[in-house]
């Protein structure tokens, strides 16, 4: 009954994970959907292209999805402003990342994070996704300059702006980035762009004896004095080093990497970034967050618990060990017995980007942080319109 009323506001264009996919075409439609859900006690989940759905995206299982690409007018790219002379981009949340990437590439820019194709800007921001270029550029949220969002009160609010440097007002956009839509729908965002490099090269080591050894070797490369790395990833026991920059420098740096690492494969030009992205499996699964110096130890504990080492994807510089999605279920079972407490002792925190994450992965906030989060939820979404299905079920 109430779903019918919602579909009268925003047409139903399909289904995802058993819930209808609604397509509000205007801000007014969106506002009416939110108002309706608030009054009817329904739960909505903003969604982009659904690339995270298979990974247990929060919100799956709400009463309906709100399809943000529908808010990009038909035939338009969703780009609101690309100031190539300032290195900034502002776009609608439903814009396709692939389209945005292509547009800024023409102006000599790149968007960080480097991520596999298919997602939307809003989806990337809400999910807090960073890519294998994290070594150089840090997490995605560092490149968000401002946002416009609609919260559970139907209130449209803006923070930050379109400038590369700006401290006017509180950084609410930092709260929305990575919040998985908990405080509202991202409508628009501005990003700082990075220049496309003159030269790129990916160096891949031979297969090392263990993933822990590969992580150690990777950190050795990181520590070579003065070497600037764009990506540093261990996949299938091989160290992948991405260098980007001026041609002459990249040649010199590549030579230094060769001297420190038994490099088996090398790939230059734009193909280098694509090759890294092709190899990287760190986007989803069970993420174990540690510190660089403990990566090897964490890998050893995981391996001792029976997890296949080749399955692991590691970013030693960013201190992330990922058990990719396909293996994560099995791994979670293997770990839960005794290794998980051992990992906790090592200071590991868990982030399960997978369906059916085991209960021990959840690390709920406690104390004041829990109180702040609750107050934020009450202020930005008092009726729980955007509450995840697993919590606050009504």
């Amino acid at each position, binding site marked *: 009954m109430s779903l019918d009323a919602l579909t009268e506001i925003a047409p139903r264009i399909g289904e995802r994970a058993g819930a209808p996919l609604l397509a509000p075409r205007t801000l007014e439609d969106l506002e009416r959907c939110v108002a309706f859900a608030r009054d009817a006690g329904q739960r909505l989940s903003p969604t982009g292209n659904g690339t995270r759905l298979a990974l247990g995206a929060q919100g799956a299982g709400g009463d309906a999805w709100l399809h943000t690409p529908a808010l990009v007018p038909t035939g338009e790219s969703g780009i609101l402003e690309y100031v190539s002379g*300032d290195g900034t981009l502002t776009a609608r949340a439903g814009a396709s990342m692939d389209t945005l990437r292509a547009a800024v590439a023409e102006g000599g820019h790149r968007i960080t994070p480097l991520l596999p194709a298919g997602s939307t800007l809003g989806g990337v921001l809400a999910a807090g996704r960073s890519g294998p270029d994290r070594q150089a550029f840090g997490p995605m949220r560092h490149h968000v300059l401002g946002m416009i969002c609609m919260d559970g009160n139907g209130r449209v609010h803006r*923070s930050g702006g379109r400038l590369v440097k700006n401290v006017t007002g509180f950084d609410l956009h930092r709260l929305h980035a990575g919040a998985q839509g908990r405080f509202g729908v991202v409508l628009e965002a501005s990003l700082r762009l990075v220049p496309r490099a003159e030269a790129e090269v990916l160096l891949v080591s031979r297969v090392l004896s263990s993933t822990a050894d590969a992580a150690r070797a990777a950190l050795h490369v990181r520590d070579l004095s003065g070497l600037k790395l764009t990506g540093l990833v261990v996949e299938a026991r091989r160290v992948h080093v991405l260098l980007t920059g001026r041609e002459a420098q990249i040649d010199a740096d590549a030579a230094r990497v060769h001297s420190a690492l038994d490099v088996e494969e090398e790939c230059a030009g734009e193909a280098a970034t694509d090759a890294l992205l092709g190899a990287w499996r760190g986007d989803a699964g069970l993420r174990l967050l540690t510190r660089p110096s403990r990566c090897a130890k964490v890998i050893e504990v995981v391996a001792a618990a029976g997890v296949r080492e080749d399955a692991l994807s590691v970013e030693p510089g960013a201190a*992330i060990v990922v058990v990719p999605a396909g293996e994560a279920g099995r791994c979670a079972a293997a770990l839960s017995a005794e290794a998980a407490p051992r990992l906790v002792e090592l200071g590991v925190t868990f982030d399960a980007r997978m369906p059916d994450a085991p209960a021990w992965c959840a690390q709920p906030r406690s104390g004041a942080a829990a109180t702040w989060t609750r107050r934020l939820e009450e*202020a930005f979404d008092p009726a729980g319109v955007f509450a995840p299905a697993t919590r606050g079920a009504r």
Partner: protein
Amino acid sequence: MELAAIVGERGVRSDALARSAYESDGFMLQREAPSIVVLPRSTEEAAAAVKVLRREGLVVVPRGAGTGLTGGARPIAGGAVLGTARMKRILEINPDDRFARVEAGVVNVHLTAATCSHGLFYAPDPSSQTACTIGGNVGNNSGGPHCFKYGSTNRHVLGLTLVDSDGEITRVGGIEPDPDGIDLLGPLVGSEGMMGLVTEVTVKLEPSPERVETLLVMFESLDACCDAVSDMIAARLEPSAIEILDRLTIEAVEASVLRAGYPEHAEAVMLVEVEGGPHEVDAIATDIIELARARGAFEARRTADDEERKKLWAGRKGAFGAMGRIAPDLYVADVVVPRTRLREIVGVASRACAARGLKLSNVFHAGDGNLHPNISYDRRDADEVARVLAAGKEIMEACVAFGGSLTGEHGVGLEKQGEMCLVFGDDDLAAMSDLRAAFDPHGFWNPGKLFPVRGCREIEARPLGSEAR
């Protein structure tokens, strides 16, 4: 007595002399002394003091070194100042994992000095770095010349310890560079002391570059210098800092003890730092000089000599102080524009000051589009003060009209709260107010700042209770 038992006799002051020392920060146009100054030595002492101050009905202004330039670190009407001046310990430097953990009162440059023997450095380098604290940098999300490449403070803070208005101690974030989930840390950085007292900060350290060169590029016109910067950004060149100093600033620096060897016959100089591998440095420096010459630069010097580089930077960083030769007081405006519009806003500032008979100098983070039109004045001259504020407002309005904003690094504080409505609407401000209230529902921390008095839900500063001492 209760507070003295917590922080020691030397940690509580309510005598007139001590109170007057805290009546302003670097924004000298307005003053208001606190009723009491409390200087804890640890997080625990700070938390215990907060409980007492709250019980006594006092509101609290967190304070670092008081170098802020917007009135953020002084009270609006009595209340307490809770300062970190006695929390100066560097608790940990971890070269393997490239982070440092410090107490909030650690002076920015002391952290940098402590890390360099490990081949690491802390990137945010405000020009006030010899005095300002890491806690104050967090409070204002401070920048500095090298933030052009490395970003402002919020890109370098991994975690912090916060004392909230209930006197509870909470660690937010940790040492992981990319944690998952709701980011409570992000909004706390740059919260201008309005969400709690930061007592400890964990920051990311960067590896020292292999080679560093400083370029001094000289122009006969400030406009041309601005255009050259816009060209560099458009050409996507990546030095680590791009600063501009105009003629009046150059003269002031050269007449001071910080004499840096800037050419006094230039209308403007561009100070650029390039770092990385030797080939990269050479390629970028060559491109920069070529672009600058195309815009009319009449000379360009390159130096990799540490002493010479230090001198050039000391001149830049001491420029505000050197301006004391021009007039007793300096109003340091802080605005941002898209980097395509530098020349235009410099023109606006120049006309706004000329029309009011004010003396303007410019020294700014050009690479970030972050301008500091500096107006020299004498605060004893009420008419001049009014003209300074009017010029400042005109510059801010023009920036917003150009797609810019009110502040790039100094924050809003008391100075710009009235102008917030130029940038944000009521709903935006209400959402920010909600964010603040989630951390501080009582309006206990630094009330009366940032939000315009009209059109927001800022809790009024409460009447002050009896002094706790």
